[in-house]
């Protein structure tokens, strides 16, 4: 099938985990719930109940990116269900039924939900519809070809007969599933690509949605924790006399590297924790600080790396040509999801139940099984809506810590909620990176490009089979696949792990680093070539026409080239990350004191077929703000082996009064859908940096933006 092969190729392009792409296994007739009663559950995603209810089981998690709505639209489209009446369910933990085909495990990340599930979901919906139509045709004794389906009913047009899906459920479940059911011609889509209400938002505006942190159970205890503030440290001793006197405190728990207080409510737990006198053994990392980490990273960046991509002959091309060189640096970042880390656990002798919002259902189940010694099938994970993910909830640590607390209780359920301080100081941080680039120009274009990334490999820890021959496919994403026509290119990666600091995926992942370095340097090269930044890029996008079209559109919509006041500039950035073609212009003013004021953001995107165009706009608007926040303020620093920042007072977020108008233009496209959730986070920082460059002439080469360097006359 051409559509299927196309989307598979699309998946591979620029996909971080492409090299672990596993053959997609058609999910079997769905989980435990499928076999009972007379409901019709032809696969793991669809369940039609005799009363007519259509339940769609969500293989990817909803953390704000709108994927529940998009998945429901895709399934309902091919199923011809009544979208307004479908009910969505969080999937249970099961790699067998719900593994993301790209990761080979039940994970939501890398902006690949729609790319990974586009064809499987369509096939699941179409096959279920074919069975329902066949069941109706059999009952009516007519040719199935003369029947159609729409809005949850099978219709025989010539006789005017209709049967609701529910009435066909028990007959349809008796029929063998047909193979190779044709998918709809996209021109006939009635849901995909049209304006549709989000499924999850009506409950969210009235406070009814249950996030992991909202779980309530009979007899529930509340706990909060303090893990060793120094990475790798342990508890030496605890004086808990004062804590025990706090009203509502039940128990003080010490477990190797963490202390927990369990109480009647969070306030008792928190007051209790504050009343403890904890003596920590800091362990081997007590002297680790940011300065030493950066010294190490800079030293590592002078070593030879593993080759991620090479074409032409860089060494030869550079001979005798004027060499342009720069190094760019990206800081550690925390995720700071609005919903702090939490997990509710009930651990019994022979079973464990967990309630939380996670991006890795089966991994939570598997790691908890290992920790408790229980068989995985005795570990039940109840997933919830996530109050933000951004990659933080790709780790199971909040579940493991909660289980370690529960191990010292007597089987009563306990909700373990982290304070914001604990959340920021015990994250898996976006790695610090250093990127070194050397390039030469020829006839006003880039001729040779030598690029090296140095930094931690998250993939080597998180999905070891994806780390092959010294290459982390995420770390080199958007570096090994340069969209510009550059005849001589060489790209290397040096894995350099920081001491002590745990690293993890962060919205925008590898492309955040590579697009920032590349697009910043391209602006510097444009200046060296005496060219306008948009024109310089456009002339090198012959092999990437979709990006060139986005660039031309954003230039037009942003008023590129029109006059601006003093110390005000426009910056552009272009990218192909996550199989979406995006060009962004940020307009910013830099005050005499070096303060950056955002004036306007314009973005043009070709993401292929947009399942939900308004969600594409919303994700870009929000993602751009996420990226601007990081570019302006984001930096986690280490002192004495511990994170210095602790809450929103010193780990700042952009607020509404700093956010300008943000316009997003979605280009109509019939190409397979691209990824979108992370793209804005990648797009904004280089565009802002280039706006500052245009406004002041200061070539920033490090994030976050250094205001001191931007004070008038500072350079």
């Amino acid at each position, binding site marked *: 099938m051409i559509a299927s092969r196309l989307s598979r190729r699309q998946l591979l392009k620029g996909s971080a985990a492409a090299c672990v792409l596993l053959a997609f296994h058609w999910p079997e007739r769905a989980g435990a719930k499928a076999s009972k009663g007379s409901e019709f559950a032809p696969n793991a995603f669809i369940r039609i109940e005799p009363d007519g209810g259509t339940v769609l089981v969500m293989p990817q998690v909803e953390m*704000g990116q709108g994927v529940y709505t998009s998945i429901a639209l895709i399934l309902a489209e091919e199923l011809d269900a009544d979208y307004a009446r479908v009910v969505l369910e969080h999937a249970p933990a099961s790699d067998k039924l719900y593994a993301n085909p790209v990761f080979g495990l039940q994970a939501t990340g890398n902006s690949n939900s729609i790319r990974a599930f586009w064809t499987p979901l369509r096939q699941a919906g179409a096959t279920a519809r074919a069975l329902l139509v066949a069941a109706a045709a059999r009952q009516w004794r007519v040719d199935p070809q003369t029947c159609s389906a729409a809005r949850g009913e099978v219709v025989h047009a010539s006789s005017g007969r209709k049967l609701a899906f529910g009435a066909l459920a028990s007959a349809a479940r008796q029929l063998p599933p047909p193979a190779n059911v044709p998918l709809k011609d996209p021109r006939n889509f009635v849901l995909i690509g049209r304006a549709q209400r989000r499924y999850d*938002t009506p409950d969210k505006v009235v*406070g009814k949605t249950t996030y992991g942190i909202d779980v309530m159970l009979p007899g529930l205890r509340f706990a909060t924790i303090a893990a060793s503030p120094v990475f790798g440290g342990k508890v030496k001793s605890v004086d808990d006399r004062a804590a025990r006197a706090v009203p509502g405190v039940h128990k003080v728990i010490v477990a190797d590297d963490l202390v927990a207080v369990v109480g009647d409510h969070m*306030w008792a737990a928190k007051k209790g924790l504050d009343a403890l006198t904890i003596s920590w053994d800091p362990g081997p990392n007590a002297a680790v600080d940011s300065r030493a980490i950066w010294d190490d990273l800079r030293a590592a960046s002078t070593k030879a790396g593993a080759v991620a991509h090479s074409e032409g002959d860089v060494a030869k091309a550079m001979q005798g040509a004027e060499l342009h060189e720069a190094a760019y640096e990206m800081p550690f970042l925390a995720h700071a999801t609005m919903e702090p880390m939490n997990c509710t656990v009930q651990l019994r002798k022979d079973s464990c139940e967990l309630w939380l919002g996670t991006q890795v259902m089966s991994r939570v189940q598997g790691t908890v099984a290992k920790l408790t010694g229980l068989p995985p099938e005795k570990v039940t994970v109840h997933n919830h809506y996530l*109050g933000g993910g951004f990659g933080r909830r790709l780790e199971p640590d909040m579940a493991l810590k909660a289980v370690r607390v529960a191990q010292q209780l007597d089987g009563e359920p306990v909700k373990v909620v982290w304070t914001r301080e604990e959340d920021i100081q015990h994250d898996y941080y976006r790695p610090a990176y250093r990127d070194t680039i050397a390039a030469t120009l020829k006839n006003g274009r880039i001729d040779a490009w030598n690029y090296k990334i140095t930094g931690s490999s998250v993939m080597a820890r998180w999905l070891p089979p994806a780390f092959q021959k010294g290459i982390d496919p995420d770390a080199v994403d958007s570096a090994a696949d340069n969209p510009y026509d550059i005849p001589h290119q060489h790209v290397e990666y040096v894995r350099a792990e920081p001491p002590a600091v745990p690293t993890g995926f962060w919205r925008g992942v590898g492309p955040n680093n590579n697009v920032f370095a590349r697009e910043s340097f391209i602006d510097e090269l444009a200046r060296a070539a005496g060219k306008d930044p948009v024109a310089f890029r456009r002339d090198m996008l012959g092999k990437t026409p979709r990006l060139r079209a986005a660039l031309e559109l954003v230039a037009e919509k942003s008023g590129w080239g029109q006059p601006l006041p003093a110390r005000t500039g426009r910056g552009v950035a272009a990218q192909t990350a996550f199989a979406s073609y995006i060009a962004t212009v940020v307009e910013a003013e830099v005050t005499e004191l070096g303060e950056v004021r955002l004036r306007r953001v314009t973005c043009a995107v070709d993401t292929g077929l947009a399942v939900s165009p308004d969600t594409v706009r919303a994700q870009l608007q929000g993602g751009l703000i996420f990226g601007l926040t990081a570019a302006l303020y984001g930096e986690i620093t280490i002192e004495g082996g511990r994170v210095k920042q602790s809450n929103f007072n010193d780990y700042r977020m952009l*607020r509404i009064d700093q956010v300008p108008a943000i316009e997003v233009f979605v280009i109509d496209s019939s190409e397979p859908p691209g990824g979108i959730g992370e793209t804005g986070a990648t797009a904004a920082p280089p565009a802002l940096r280039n706006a500052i460059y245009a406004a002041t002439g200061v070539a920033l080469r490090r994030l976050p933006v250094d205001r001191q360097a931007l004070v008038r006359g500072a350079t």
Partner: protein
Amino acid sequence: MPEQKQLTINGQKHAVDAPDDMPLLWVLRDIVGLTGTKFGCGIAQCGACTVHLDGRPVRSCLLPASAAVGRAVTTIEGIGATAVGARVQKAWLELEVVQCGYCQSGQIMSAVALLSATPRPDDSDINAAMAGNICRCGTYVRIREAIKRAAGSEA
């Protein structure tokens, strides 16, 4: 020592056993079971815990429950019963403001308080009233539009 307090929440009386210094946030969430009000930072920096006390917005993570005795507490679960609240929630849906939604209870409570005091807010009114509410998903552009939509639909 815990002592019984009479609180009026969304028009209903609740007798709760809570220490005097226990913030209203945790009384609402962990004792009364109204979990629509969210914990975000605990230091009044993010606004996720915003509720109304006699119609005025307060950060419930720092407000002792004892300070709410004898006053009307309104939360996200009850704000839709007011005309302004219903209008704001409707505008939020029409413009699809919400992403993860975790901060939106607080955003909506701040927006309702703004529109109750200033029915026709301009951009600087919106900035002043809403800058205390962080949204990590970055829904600010639509929050601004939705407040204007809710204000405009008043007539």
